[in-house]
């Protein structure tokens, strides 16, 4: 089925997209590009980073630039950085416990409590996202989530907390967040990966674990930084291998072809391990710095790329 571009479909059908992946795969870049894409579709968009995994400063600066390309997008796009401690204080104030909030800060107990109570930091962030989603101020919320090693802890926090806290305000928050995460029209997980060995195996593992636990509905997997494929005939490949020893240019060709071949193998492995999963392919950007032009280009790509799933 060659359907709608997978990420466009996810943006249009879901209010909260949680973008996650192993360190170094370009998770923050894809989050920023997805947010630009959503805003470009006319959706009121929030790009949310966490204090521990906030979108790279460069990206934030890039988004803040007054580039002409952003003129239509900027009014629709807001950027947030969430800190669990601040959310807790705000939450207590909203529930008529301002004095407790102040007391908790002055004794330094906030950080102790938020460290000691299982899942509370994660829950606070998720509860805030739920509040943003319910406020009606945004059509799309894009979260640049914690690195995938911590992702399951993050997603399972409301359930874990609900298991041990039978009563209390947090319990009802946990239930609300659980309802958000288990409704595919409200939230989906977007995993970002590279066509390299370690990211492919980590992504497949995370995907399977999230699926097993039913933690959240799975959206498309974004395969980032793909180089154009080179499909040499076996005969040409053989010729390059034998010439490489004495011909520098042949050696260079051989390297390029071997890299491209490795990428194809890793992509095939990803497909094999995630059958039926929709994939959005994102091209490698031949630039070491990412400015607003590059991000806007990526956003456009995410909106137009037609899936090649079978």
């Amino acid at each position, binding site marked *: 089925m060659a359907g709608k571009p997978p990420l466009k479909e996810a943006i249009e059908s879901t209010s909260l997209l949680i973008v996650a992946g192993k360190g170094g795969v370009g998770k923050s870049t894809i989050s920023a590009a997805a947010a630009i894409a959503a805003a470009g579709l006319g959706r009121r968009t929030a790009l949310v980073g966490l204090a521990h995994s906030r979108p790279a400063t460069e990206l934030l600066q890039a988004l803040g630039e007054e580039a002409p390309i952003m003129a239509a997008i900027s009014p629709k796009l807001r950027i947030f950085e969430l800190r669990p401690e601040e959310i807790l204080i705000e939450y207590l104030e909203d529930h008529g416990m301002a004095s407790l909030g102040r007391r908790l800060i002055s004794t330094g107990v906030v950080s102790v409590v938020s460290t000691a109570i299982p899942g509370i930091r994660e829950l606070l962030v998720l509860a805030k996202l739920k509040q943003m989603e319910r406020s009606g101020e945004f059509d799309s919320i894009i979260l640049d989530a914690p690195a995938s090693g911590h992702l399951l802890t993050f997603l399972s926090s409301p359930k874990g907390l609900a298991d041990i*806290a039978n009563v209390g305000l947090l319990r009802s928050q946990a239930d609300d967040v659980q309802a958000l995460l288990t409704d595919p029209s409200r939230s989906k997980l977007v995993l970002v990966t590279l066509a390299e060995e370690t990211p492919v195996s980590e992504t497949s593992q995370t995907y399977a674990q999230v699926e097993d636990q039913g933690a959240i509905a799975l959206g498309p997997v974004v395969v980032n930084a793909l180089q154009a494929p080179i499909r040499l005939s076996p005969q040409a490949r053989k010729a390059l291998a034998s010439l490489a020893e004495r011909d520098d240019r042949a050696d260079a060709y051989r390297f390029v072809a071997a890299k491209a071949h490795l990428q194809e193998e890793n992509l095939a492995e990803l497909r094999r391990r995630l059958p039926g999963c929709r994939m959005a392919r994102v091209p490698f950007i031949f630039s*070491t710095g990412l400015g607003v032009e590059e991000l806007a280009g990526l956003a456009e790509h995410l909106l137009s790329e037609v899936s090649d799933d079978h």
Partner: protein
Amino acid sequence: MTIDVAAAGPDRPIERLGDLLGSRKVVVLAGPGGVGKTSSAAAIAVGAALSGIRTCVVTIDPAKRLADALGIEHIGNDPVEIDAVGAGKLWAVMLDADATFDDLVVRYAKTEDQAGRILSNRVYQNLTRNLSGVQEYMAMEKLFELHNDRRFELLVVDTPPSANALDFLDAPRRLVSFLDNRVFRLIMSPGPAILRPVSFAARAVLKTISRVVGAEVVDEAVAFFQDFEGMEDGFRERAQSVQALLHEDATAFVLVSAPRGDTVTEALSFGEKLSGFGFAVAGVISNRHTPAFATGSRSAELETELEPLDRDELEANLARMELLRNSEESELIRLVADLEPPRVARVPLLDRDIASIEDLAQMARSLL
């Protein structure tokens, strides 16, 4: 001091990273995620072992093929000796951070009962995962233990990837201050644990917290702090010993990076943090450089062997690689100009994944 990286040539570092190995006992690799820290650590260790140094590499969560290459099958805290490294001796250990923390609890607990209660407490289980930097700190803790092991002359340590990857430097302090928190001290007046009266003021705070999080959670937290009482001293002393080891002259910090804009920015902030903690960056590894090819004119043979279409595709790809290589050069210069490390190793991208000791040895040659 100005370092002209460009003049140093593609694979010729300013001063060789390999020089570190003879004079240091511990090499700690730190850097952003996804730059190849684990394979660099493994390659340095293989290189050191090949030059006859008895080496142990401490890894965290290596890729499967890398673990296979090293011949380690299971996570566990006992170093495994690896065969087939020429004349040298090499051990590897795949760290289990949770088990390391558990070991510490068992060591400092006064009774088996106390240890058992702590290990089964959900607040404790959460602490090991969620207190920022604890996993990283446990890597350092393991390091301290291995440092006292006579079998090894050199330890190469890979630090785990995390958003705040230098948290391990601050983690001992944070852990001790967490355990020392005065609000919880208030709760625990002297007396037998079960009968301990909780002070009135503390009760009021706890009661309000209970309204928010539920009473069971608070009970479990209080139980944890009560059980942990008396163990802080052990933890504090241990943390100080680990800090002292890291500050020894025989310990070197090597920053691993890759020549991409965001990665270099992250690596630079690592460097800043390291010096903030009083550590000098002994060397920089810039990984995954697009290799430079001496591309003379195409030989007649090559012309006849390739279809024009294939040739054009390869040419276009080479041209893009050349562009990329230029921007990588400027990123490396940006990194080195700011950090001014005494040693820089530029490691080319391999055209395959690391799958054997030979691959690691090859990487070691460009590293060291």
